[in-house]
Every structure is written in structure tokens, then in C-alpha cells.
């Protein structure tokens, strides 16, 4: 079996290497890829959209249709993870573990009965995870607000620096995953319940498609942000600028919520009681 795989891989690699003979030399300014469509995007982007970051302008305005369906793909992946893994346990069958906060002693309570969750002396401990560490908990408590602030900054400055909706959304989602890693999954689920994250990911796609539909209702074509100029009381170039920002906000919401949904389902195998 391995020899057949090796033969297939070597023959495919050989064919591809044979095809590289026809490629243009690397970093050639006049290669066919850089001659036809992209000079127009580079030269006209500032006067048509007012966004200096060319990648954001092309992603959210000139090729905005692709980005809408990419957001829908991310949302579908979140739903697929949820549908595959999420199960609801009816009754607790195992004993629970509680940790005495001040001494670190672990108490095992048998199945059926439980201690108070919000006690100041005892807290719930996971069965499979490492013991609670003071350094990690304190460091993450200090870091998480700054990570979220940085995520918002990356999202808002997507027009002038490298960044934009995806990067900002992933950083925001990663801050909540860090909360789940440093404490436990129950704390993160309390901060961002499953219902809120599901609604947020759906509303991200809704914001994006909604902006496009508003453009249609105002008489222009789908995702033509110049149609928003009358209702925002700006000129068409500034309307395209603001349309790109609105669309990036929708993308960031969808990506953030989907990262949290996928992490919660995979790390707890669907049960949402003990996580990584």
C-alpha cells in the first residue's frame, strides 16, 4: 500500500516539476499574472474606494461576492461541528470533584448529590485537566482584555494597515479560547453562552448579506456600496469606504463566534462539562 502511494506521489510530483518549465521567471514584473486585472486595482483603488490597503479593498469591494460566500462557509463549518458533536447528557452518572481553594485539597462527591457551585471555599475541578495554576491564571487575566483590544484595533485599522475582518475576528475568538484554557470551559461558557455565540455567527453573515440587500433595495446592484451614499449623507467614494468597514464587522462577528463554537465542541467532545 505504501509503495503504491509512493509511486503515485512521485509521478504526480514529476509531472508538476515537468510543468514548471513553462513558468515565467520568479518576481518578474511583467509576468502574465500581474498584467491584466491587477494594475487596474492598484491604480484605481484610492480614487474609487479611498482605502489604501489594496488587499482589503479588493477583498471587500471588488471581490465582495467571494467574501460573502466564504463567510457563509465558515458559518456552515461551525454548524457542522455543532451538529456532529453536541449531545445533551440527561443525568450525571459520575462523581464530581471539588477543589478546596485555599489548600488545594480535592474532594470527591458521589454521583447524584452535589455541592453548591458558587461557594467561596470550594470550586469545581475537572477530571481530565491539569491542576489549576496561579501564574497562568493571573497572567491570562491580565492579558485577555489587551488581546481583545488589539483584535478590535486590527479590525478597525484594516483600511490603512495589514489587517481587516478575518484577522480581527480570529484574535477576538482566540482571547475567549485563552480564557477557556486558563480557567475551564465552564467559565468561558458563562462569559459567552452557546446561544449567544450561535446567534452571533449567524448575524455576522446576516450583516454582510444585509448590506448587499440594502444596496439592491436602493436601486443599484448587489454589494454596490455606492448606493449607500444617499442614506449616509456622504459622497460615493466615502460610502464605499464605510461599506467596506460594515462588511468587515460582519465578517469579524461570524469568524469570532465560529472559532468559539468549534473549540467548545471539539475540546469537550460535545458534552460541554469539562474541557481542555
Amino acid at each position, binding site marked *: *500500500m*505504501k509503495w503504491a*502511494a*509512493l509511486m*503515485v*506521489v*512521485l509521478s*504526480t*510530483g514529476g509531472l*508538476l*516539476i515537468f510543468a*514548471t*518549465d513553462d*513558468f515565467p*521567471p*520568479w*518576481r*518578474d*514584473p511583467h*509576468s502574465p*499574472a*500581474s498584467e491584466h*486585472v*491587477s*494594475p487596474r*486595482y*492598484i*491604480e484605481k*483603488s*484610492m480614487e474609487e474606494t479611498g482605502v*489604501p*490597503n*489594496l*488587499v482589503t479593498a*479588493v*477583498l471587500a469591494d471588488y*471581490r465582495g461576492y*467571494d*467574501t460573502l460566500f*466564504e463567510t457563509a*462557509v*465558515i458559518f*456552515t*463549518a*461551525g454548524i*457542522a*461541528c455543532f451538529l*456532529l*458533536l453536541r449531545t445533551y447528557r440527561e443525568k450525571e452518572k459520575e462523581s464530581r470533584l471539588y477543589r478546596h481553594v485555599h489548600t488545594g485539597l480535592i474532594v470527591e462527591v458521589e454521583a447524584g448529590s452535589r455541592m453548591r457551585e458558587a461557594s467561596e471555599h470550594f470550586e469545581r475541578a475537572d477530571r481530565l485537566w491539569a491542576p489549576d495554576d496561579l501564574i497562568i491564571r493571573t497572567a491570562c487575566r491580565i492579558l485577555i482584555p489587551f488581546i481583545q483590544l488589539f483584535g478590535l484595533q486590527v479590525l478597525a485599522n484594516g483600511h*490603512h*494597515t*495589514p489587517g481587516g475582518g*478575518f484577522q480581527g475576528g480570529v484574535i477576538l475568538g482566540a482571547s475567549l479560547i485563552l480564557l477557556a484554557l486558563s480557567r475551564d470551559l465552564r467559565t468561558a461558557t458563562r462569559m459567552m453562552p452557546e446561544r449567544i455565540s450561535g446567534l452571533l455567527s449567524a448575524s455576522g453573515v446576516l450583516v454582510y448579506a444585509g448590506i448587499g440587500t440594502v444596496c439592491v433595495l436602493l436601486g443599484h446592484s448587489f454589494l454596490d456600496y455606492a448606493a449607500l451614499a444617499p442614506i449616509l449623507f456622504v459622497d460615493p467614494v466615502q460610502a464605499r469606504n464605510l461599506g467596506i468597514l460594515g462588511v468587515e464587522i460582519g465578517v469579524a462577528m461570524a*469568524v469570532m463566534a*465560529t472559532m468559539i463554537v*468549534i473549540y467548545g*465542541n*471539539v475540546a469537550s*467532545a460535545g458534552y460541554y462539562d469539562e474541557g481542555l
Partner: protein
Amino acid sequence: MISTLIAKYNYWIYITLMMVGMYAMIAKNNLVKKIIGMNVFQTAIILFFVSIGAKQDATIPVLEHSHGPEAHTVRALDYINPLPHVLMLTAIVVAVATLGVALALAVKVFNRYHTLEEDEILTQIREE
């Protein structure tokens, strides 16, 4: 031969990386190794595409001096081609979405068969 090697060595390394990923997807028994191979393949393809957009003596695709009094004309030769970057941004995020679903499937398979090796799973399926 040597001149083509020096001219095209980077493309050959990208193709080697792609074939490493493809070999892992086909020949490895463990499911998580197959998923790692899938991701290696995807990032190698993204690397190949991004390398197409590079230009000699050009800067990053962010327009400089765009606001302010000295708004001069923009030459397309000064900036790297932004189109492959846009397409590959979509590809990266789709790759992570596919990774999430693939790992969810692997966890589900493990819950059912208590192993992640492909030959043991096939043996258990045949015995049912």
C-alpha cells in the same frame, strides 16, 4: 540543467512540500496524521500562489502617502500584485474551517471505535 535548477528551485521546493502532504494523506494509517497531511498540502498550495504575486523591487500592497498633500499617481510596477493575496486569504480561512470539521469527525470516530488507526477501524467494521 543547473541553470533551470537555479532559476526554478523555489517552485521545485513548493512541489516537494505538496507531495509530502499528499503522501501523508494517502499512506498514513492514523486519522490525525492524515488531517495534518491535508493541512500541509493546503498551505503548500497557498505558498505557491502567493509566490506568483511577487515582483522585483516592489513594496507591500499598501499605498504609501495616500492621504495628504502629496497625492501622486500610483504606478502598478511599484506594488506587489494583490490578487493572489486576496484569493489566498479566503483559502486560509476555509482551510481552518475544514480543519475544525475534520477534527470533529475524528473525535466522533474515536468515540465510536475507540481507536484512530484506519486498519483497526476497518477490522472492526468488517466484524460487525
